[in-house]
């Protein structure tokens, strides 16, 4: 049966926010080491929304973005999506490869570079979750897409939509401040039946 709206209370929302906050701290540190840059991130936002409203939350419906998607599983299951605007991806490619290009190129090398960033961010994020929630988690290989943000999120919503009409979206924006244009967004969308397990693991 589909799970009804979760109706998280304030303490539960705060707990999810804090879990993400700690996870993001480690994930951005790993990314900073990889890039040799200081990375900042905003305080994560937790939202409970109907699945139909998730695309608008992720971004402009007609904007083409770079997305890296990973699923994680274990006692809890869920989806992590990294979204980079086109401009940020150009900056990222410049930092990582040293090549100055005006056009975004996604050959095998650059695609796997972006995927590897997904691996590193998600790997370090999940290792923090494992410690905090006291459980083993594994993640999938990263999948790459360069498309409309709302189309990229489709496979995630399909996964979530099987059991529920609403979902929890935990969002954190990160950026490199010394360059003009490098921002990215981290989205964690736990499966609906995993939210309470996550909260239970921290005593809520």
């Amino acid at each position, binding site marked *: 049966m589909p799970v009804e709206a979760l109706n998280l209370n304030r303490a539960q929302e705060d707990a999810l926010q804090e879990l993400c906050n700690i996870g993001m701290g480690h994930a951005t540190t790993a990314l900073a080491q990889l890039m040799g840059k200081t990375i900042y991130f905003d305080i994560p936002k937790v939202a409970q929304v109907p699945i139909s409203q998730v695309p608008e939350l992720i971004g402009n419906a007609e904007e083409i973005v770079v997305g890296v998607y990973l699923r994680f599983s274990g006692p809890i299951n869920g989806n992590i999506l990294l979204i980079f605007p086109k401009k940020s991806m150009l900056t990222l490619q410049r930092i990582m490869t040293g090549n100055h290009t005006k056009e975004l190129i996604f050959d095998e090398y650059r695609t796997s570079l972006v995927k590897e960033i997904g691996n590193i961010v998600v790997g370090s994020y999940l290792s923090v979750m494992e410690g905090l929630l006291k459980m083993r988690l594994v993640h999938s290989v990263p999948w790459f897409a360069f498309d409309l943000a709302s*189309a990229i999120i489709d*496979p995630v919503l399909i996964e979530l939509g*099987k059991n529920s009409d609403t979902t929890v979206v935990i969002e954190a924006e990160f950026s490199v401040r010394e360059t003009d244009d490098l921002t990215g967004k981290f989205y964690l969308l736990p499966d609906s039946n995993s939210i309470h397990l996550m909260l239970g693991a921290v005593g809520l």
Partner: protein
Amino acid sequence: MKKVLRVRISEHAVAGDSVRLKSYGLGSCIGLVIWDRARKIGGMAHILLPAARNHSFRHKSAKYASSAVTVLVEELLGRGCDHKQLVAKIAGGANMFPLRFNLACSEPGTSIGQLNVRAVKQALVRRKIPLVSEEIGGERGRTIEFDPRSGELFVYNSSGEVKVI
């Protein structure tokens, strides 16, 4: 400018010839249009999944392929449309992460997009509505816009190209 009505995931809308219907960013989702050729009334549904996992649960919405066809047809008939004049068009059903082997699917070698397409086609056959055109599959997202006056379905792909089906 005509009024444009946005149809989000799991939603549907029916409109006469003064309104255009639009769905943004169809990935593996399906945009289904059913149109009364004589009365120039059309409906659009933004379908997420092939079918409800629990069949006893009757989900009266555009979320699932089978219920989406039913919901649109009933609403069109309720607005005085003639079943014999109804035709369908579909777009979407892409595989957004091509190398992602079927985590989401029960059937090996099939993407959720393909399963969605198949489910919509089966539902249309059951309701005896001819499918007159389609723009499906591939690995790119699409945005669609339907004009009930002309029956034209504009399919924009994410590279900015447009096809009218």
